[in-house]
């Protein structure tokens, strides 16, 4: 009976022993996380106050950072955007430090892999941010130019360009992250090619009249028959 009880108690003792040994690590992780989050929040608040004190937003306006953010549909103040980036970097650092405090070999290995992967993640996020800004800027430029030219399908054209660029940028990001590169390349080729083919067919079938009008207008312009607009705006 005693042996039987030992059979039950020993694993429990062992588990308790392991847990007791693990507990300080867990507590250390929790402390690191709590302190890290507090530090990140304090850093964010201090950074915002500092950036306000040095009039960072005006400086960002002058050198065109604000304008670049607006081009990409990012409406936060540059100081708040920078503070948010710093906050999340600190949170990621805190999480990494907290996890390594657990001293679990599997987690340590994962963290090591993560740290090795970090440069790729960083460059992928740069591609994503720059791509997002560029896509927003270009599609808006196309929309405004098309409207000002009197093109009837301006929104469709701008959205098509946004979609094509988004697909292209996402493919670039996944390629950079080395996420199933073969599949990404194949998927990208299929999706991108599909969209282009769909647009071509859509224009060919639905836009016959528009194409005819454009060709006729060009022919008239070449022949000098198009109605002249003599008005001088300035």
């Amino acid at each position, binding site marked *: 009976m005693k042996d039987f009880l030992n059979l039950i108690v020993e694993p429990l003792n062992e588990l308790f022993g392991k847990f007791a040994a693990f507990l300080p690590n867990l507590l250390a992780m929790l402390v690191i996380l709590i302190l890290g989050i507090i530090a990140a929040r304090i850093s964010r608040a201090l950074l915002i106050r500092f950036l306000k004190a040095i009039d960072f937003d005006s400086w960002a306006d002058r050198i065109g950072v604000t*304008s670049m953010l607006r081009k990409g549909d990012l409406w936060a103040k540059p100081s708040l955007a920078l503070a948010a980036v710093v906050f999340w970097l600190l949170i990621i650092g805190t999480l990494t430090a907290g996890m390594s405090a657990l001293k679990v070999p599997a987690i340590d290995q994962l963290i090591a892999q993560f740290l090795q992967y970090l440069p790729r993640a960083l460059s992928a996020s740069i591609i994503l941010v720059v791509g997002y800004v560029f896509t927003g800027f270009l599609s808006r430029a196309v929309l*405004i*130019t098309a*409207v*000002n030219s009197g093109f009837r399908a301006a*929104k469709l054209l701008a959205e098509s360009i946004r979609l094509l660029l988004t697909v292209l940028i996402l493919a670039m990001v996944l390629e950079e992250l080395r996420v199933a590169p073969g599949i990404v390349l194949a998927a990208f080729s299929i999706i991108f090619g599909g969209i282009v083919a769909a647009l071509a067919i859509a224009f060919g079938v639905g836009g016959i009249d528009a194409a005819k009008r454009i060709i006729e207008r060009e022919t008239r312009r070449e022949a000098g028959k198009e109605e002249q607009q003599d*008005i*001088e*705006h300035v």
Partner: protein
Amino acid sequence: MAQITQRQEVRTFLDQIGSADILVGIPSYNNARTIGHVVRAIQAGLAKYFPNRKAVLVNSDGGSRDGTMDVVRRTRIEDQAALLLHHRVDPTPVIAMPYTGPPGKGSAFRAVFEIADALGAKACAVVDSDLRSITPEWIELLIRPVLNGEAEFVAPLYHRHKYDGTITNSIVYPLTRALYGKCVRQPIGGDFGFSGKLASFYLAQDVWQTDVARFGIDIWMTTTAIANRFSVAQSFLGAKIHDAKDPGSDLSVMLYQVVSAAFGLMEAYHPIWRDVRTVDAVPSFGFEYTVGLEPVQVNVGRMTGVFREGVRNLTEIWSDVLGKGDLIEVTRLAELPDREFRFPPSLWTRIIYDYAIAYHRKQLSAEHLLKSLTPLYLGKTASFILEAESLGQEDAEALIEKLCSEFERAKDYLIARWQ
């Protein structure tokens, strides 16, 4: 940046001349076809009206490849008797040189200001190189008020077709007048007279590496003169006819350049214009006469078409700039048939002020913001053409005056929202 006066050929010219009473500048870029006439008119004007004054003619060129500078160098008045000149006329010293700095009319003017400053010129004038209607009298009308001490800056006053100059009539003139309190009818006319002192003042401003050097120099000169309390006048020059514009020139680019220059100056001179509460007429010179103007063809349907496309596609941008209330009013306008299409002056005024505020707050990239104004501007222009169709020149001018009054009345709205 290297000064133009440090260049060897310019230095030699300046050393030969020493000093001058009058300087006339012509900015140019590939204007060989028209600049000869402009040079002849200037030489005739100087010979006829200022025979006892020492004058120079400066051609500031942007790197023409059609021999523009050669035309300037070899052009002389051939038949003096035809101009009723009975005194001996010495040829006006001429220098034609390429300017330095960013390409644009502003850099060309900077070179003119530098030479005026170096020669200690008392009075200067600048005229466009593509003018076909310039006469010798233009030089007198732009220079005389300055030499007589009656004005330090002389803006042009033209008779134009009622449909022409719509960016001036619906934006720049009402805005400049309401902001700075001076009724300068053609603030971006392009042909100006000014004192040597004002030329030196212009030269001393730190703007020659900015957009002012590329475009917007006309509104910059006018606004800088008014805002810095130089005495301003205008001279009636008759009709302004110039070479046919480049058919490829894009309206939205033109609108962006003109409006961004005006809005940019609002930033610089905010402390000045926020306190201006009255609007004063400026002294006018020259004998006003009626000018026969060529008919102008317009396609109102295309204008309203672009306006309606804007309403269909640009509501997101317009909503951020104009706010919901005015956007609803704009949307209602788009539903009207062409014959009833009228843009209320109060709505147009708020639109321009809202765009100025959005530009000030950097709500969007400046180029996108101001290019998104194009459909609204075309809507306003179409409305003006429909309204002025059956009106004479004076009644059409009264419509513009009514719009100016609206800009002045709504100025408090702009001041309140600017902060």
